[in-house]
């Protein structure tokens, strides 16, 4: 799916917490339609980098540019409005609300009517609601979660909650999708399903995907490009095969006795 144009430029991004340098001077070019994985040991700064891209934190140095527009100082809501959606390591959904309602919330950034207009049953508020519901139903169909559409999220097994969270991010119709450990804590079958959905999202809508994942099998299978972080620094970048063969990667991440 790589079309060769850089969609997201991350330039010299650094972020520290107290004395700890979580991310230091990391630069990456992400191509449109690419699946890029970020790997590295615990505390390597992977989630911090994702948080910088989605503006949960603002980096101390460096810039983040999406399709020529600087996102570095924007609020998270504005970054979402520019087309960057994400999921979280520990699922961030409204547990008491149904799957449909959670996904509808994912559409809020595209809702144009204000509070008062939306409160009226008739007219543009209703039309808009129907239109968004259609988008949400497409996502439900895509992720094969029809059977749980009316169930409160909190009552679902963990693997399905992960899927719903992906759905919530997709509801934004993002250009770039950030996934923080989408397969964390799921079983083998759920992992396979999730890998297939990630590939299908990329395939169907050409969405650029940046994911953090620990399962090396999955990473090597689905990504086109991999970057490796260690102690906040990017120590390698390349295709899965290149990264696997990189001596520093073997040492820092895969252990000295390489056995992938």
């Amino acid at each position, binding site marked *: 799916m790589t079309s060769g144009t850089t969609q997201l430029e991350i330039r010299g991004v650094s972020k520290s917490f107290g004395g700890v340098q979580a991310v230091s001077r990391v630069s990456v070019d992400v191509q449109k339609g690419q699946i890029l994985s970020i790997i590295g040991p615990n505390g390597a700064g992977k989630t911090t980098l994702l948080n910088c891209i989605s503006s949960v934190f603002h980096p101390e140095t460096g810039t983040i540019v999406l399709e020529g527009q600087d996102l570095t100082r924007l609020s998270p809501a504005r970054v979402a409005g520019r087309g960057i959606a994400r999921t979280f390591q520990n699922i961030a959904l409204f547990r008491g609300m149904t799957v449909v309602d959670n996904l509808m919330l994912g559409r809020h950034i595209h809702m144009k009517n204000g509070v008062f207009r939306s409160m009226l049953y008739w007219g543009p508020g209703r039309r808009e609601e129907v239109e968004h*519901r*259609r988008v949400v*139903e*497409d996502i*439900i*169909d*895509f992720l*094969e979660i*029809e*059977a749980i*559409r009316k169930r409160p999220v909190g009552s679902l097994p963990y693997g399905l909650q992960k899927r719903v969270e992906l759905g919530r991010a997709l509801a934004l119709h993002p250009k770039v999708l950030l996934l923080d450990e989408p397969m964390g804590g799921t079983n*083998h079958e759920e992992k396979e399903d999730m890998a*297939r959905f990630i*590939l*299908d999202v990329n*395939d*169907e809508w050409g969405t650029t995907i940046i994911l953090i994942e620990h399962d090396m099998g999955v990473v090597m299978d689905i990504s086109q490009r991999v970057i490796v972080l260690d102690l906040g620094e990017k120590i390698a970048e390349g295709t899965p095969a290149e990264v696997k063969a990189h001596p520093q990667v073997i040492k820092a991440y895969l252990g000295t006795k390489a056995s992938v």
Partner: protein
Amino acid sequence: MPEMTLPQFLLKNAREHPAAPALREKEKGIWQEWSWADYLGHVRAFALGLVSLGFGRDDKLAILSDNRPQVYAAMVAAQVLGGIPVPVFQDAIAREIQYVIDHADATIVFAEDQEQVDKILELKGSLPKVARLIYEDPKGLRHYADPLLMSLEKLEELGRKLDGERPGLFEDLVRSTKSHDVALICYTSGTTGAPKGAMISHANLVSAIQGILEVEHYGRTDQMLAYLPPAWIGDTFWSLAGSLIVGCTVNCPERPETVLENLREIGPHFMIAPPRIWENLVSTVQIKMADASWAKRRLYTWLMPAGEEAARRAMEKQPLSLRLRILRALGEFLVFAPLRDQLGFRRTRYAYTGGAPLGPEIFLFFRSLGINLKQVYGQTEAGGVSCVQRDGDIKLGTVGKPFPNTEVRLTETGEVISRSPCVFVGYYKNPEATIATLRDGWLYSGDAALFDQDGHLIVIDRAKDVTALADSTKFAPQYIENKLKFSPYIKEAVAVGQDRPYVGAMVNIDMENVGKWAERRQIAYTTYTDLAQKPEVYDLIAEEVERVNRDLPDGTRINKYVLLHKELDPDDEEVTRTRKVRRGFVAKKYADIIEALYSEARSVGVTSVITYQDGRQATVRTELAIRRVGAARELAGV
């Protein structure tokens, strides 16, 4: 009417009621409708698309899909050309799919989605006759470059192009279909040997539907739900032939997991379900009642027994006392009608159970709710259904009476044989089996049965399975097994004892129900095997076995039993896809265990190979306890 073919019925419906709903499928949360005109349009495009691909008379179209409107359109499309649809069980393992498609000489396969396409592409090397693979849902298939593949959209486009070039071709093709053409090859998952392809003609299907229409009333505005595997004759009988002939609407569920929800939305007028589904519905009600408010629970426990009593008396054709009438009227208002509505049976005139025997408690449960549940019986080889219990003449344990157009007799050995216009053409490429099954126009069913004094048929077992102990006492293993399986704690059972001194039983516990039972008693367990081997669970099953023994003739009571370490699984060939025990195979596979049932051993070791998710394998050895019935207490703790 018997001279008409299914495509001709479609043409007739589309002409007479073009805008009436023919098929529906829930998609993206909304029921999408095909009118009869739409149905015809899709069949026209599909059929002519097949013509452009060179598909013609006697060619076979294999179908691998859940219930979708496109599945039925594909079947009729093949029939229009004098071709034959061959539906394949969509969840079968690769080897079975390969066998059926290859044996049927299918040249084109119609697959629902990526999952099914992947199965066929993996088997490509061993399916040399398959020239095209048509798929319906393009999701995930965009980058597949295999030359076999073609989308349904593209196929229909080819068809519409041809229709423009040769108008009238489609109508000519439909006109030239003959009622004695083979309309369908249905592979039956036999309990012995490889599956056999039963060739069923249009005349067979039409006669079978006519047979049921002589005793039941179906109308054009009736709704039904198509949710059983299209490869099963029960689905083809109603969802394909029934709908085309009667003109009623077939509704396809959104996903297999949403069937119960969709059932409620549709509220079908008639419905067929195998015992498994009826059993699930009972547990659904029981779970809901357990969570219901105090008042509702009280009403339920107060009025349900009255409903049961009334239903039982009605079956025995006895009058109801005034007290019972009042209670039932009250129950109807407060409990039964609301429950029927909750389940989706508010409008149901006929509910059928078939394929296997249904427990009497379950049967009675639905009848007490005022649901007209009836037993049906038939063979794939006789168009699906040929006996049904008549309204007002329902008896527990029977399968009712044959359709008026069907003659049923018993041979000297008690085997059911039948003669009717529904009896099939023969098995595809299997003349030996055809000769063995079809003799002088009679269809030999292989089922042992008897008629009761009122002419109701009672099916006992597969004729060849009726066997004898060493002292030549006759017994029917399936009869014993079914009694065992009526227990909520027993999922599957195999009774053995041919040429042995007594009957022994191998039992699969029902993991869900036994698991819950164990949790309530705070019995800790890890796996299926671990749970099955708990002495407490052996005690629990002992009670069930003793209950069954009370109903069995003296010589054929179960003497010893063992709880198996794993569930019998169609993937391991121990049971068929329709969950019938494959005795010969099981006897061979579990020879050690069976031997132990007839020795003094108190346990038997089994080794099983476990394949982990990452492909590693490990061999695990388990000791299975052997229990003598009646000696349960003394041996507790083995």
